[in-house]
């Protein structure tokens, strides 16, 4: 059974009021929902609230879910919207998760040219680098961050990501590319400053 087939089966069971199916659904999707929420609201307590809200609202509205998108996509969309509401409440000066500087304007032109691609695995497994990678994601403009998290970390397809965010495939592809270039630049500068030798 594919993941999508499992989700369809789960959906029928949840609609029938099967609590074990609700448990399965939470087991399959709660970690991803929590991680997305944490990346967006940047606060563990708020991320927990978003996760709870997501499943409470999803189970309450399960009969209204038309099944046109996958269950996973639907849950991520609820979580994304819940995170946005909290974000707006905290930052009323901003109307959305969009950063004030246009995240879609042109491509970031690579400047850092240190070639770290041949570094030994042990250099790439250091806890310090992992922390830097995490900080780099957090510093991505929000529009790019949410696409990067959904596509690269949660491994949603381009279609699922576009459906979650209510945007086009082309926008998802462009933002993912911009996010990757941005992170490459950031990591390249990190390795350059660390003085590591390939």
């Amino acid at each position, binding site marked *: 059974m594919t993941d999508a087939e499992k989700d369809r089966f789960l959906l029928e069971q949840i609609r029938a009021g099967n609590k074990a199916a609700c448990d399965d659904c*939470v087991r399959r999707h709660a970690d991803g929902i929590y991680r997305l929420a944490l990346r967006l609201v940047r606060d563990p307590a708020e991320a927990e609230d978003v996760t*709870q809200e997501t499943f409470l609202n999803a189970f309450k509205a399960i009969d209204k879910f038309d099944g046109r998108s996958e269950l996973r996509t639907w849950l991520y969309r609820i979580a994304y919207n819940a995170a946005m509401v909290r974000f707006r409440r905290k930052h009323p000066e901003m109307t959305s998760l969009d950063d004030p500087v246009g995240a879609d304007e042109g491509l970031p032109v690579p400047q850092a040219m240190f070639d770290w691609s041949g570094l030994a695995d042990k250099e790439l497994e250091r806890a310090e680098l992992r922390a830097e990678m995490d900080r780099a994601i957090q510093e991505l403009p929000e529009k790019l961050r949410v696409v990067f998290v959904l596509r690269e970390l949660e491994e949603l397809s381009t279609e699922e990501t576009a459906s979650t965010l209510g945007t086009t495939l082309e926008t998802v592809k462009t933002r993912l590319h911009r996010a990757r270039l941005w992170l490459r630049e950031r990591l390249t500068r990190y390795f350059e400053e660390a003085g590591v030798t390939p």
Partner: protein
Amino acid sequence: MTHQDCRELLGDLSAFLDGEASAEVCAEIRRHMADCRKCRVVVDTLRKTVTLYHTVPQPEMPEETRERLYKVLDLSDFLRR
């Protein structure tokens, strides 16, 4: 990266790495990379950046957060299953 050709190819690099670029674009990028060290570095480090993020284990929700979630959803009986 200032050369006009480099900038023109920049927009296609993710599609190139993901295997989604056309054969024509792939050939053009490879041809350009053979003569342009900067673009080789950008492509190699961009590929490595993507790979690195794919290999990092994703954190799970803290156990106490999971317990509270199950309680709110009235599913606590299933938690230790």
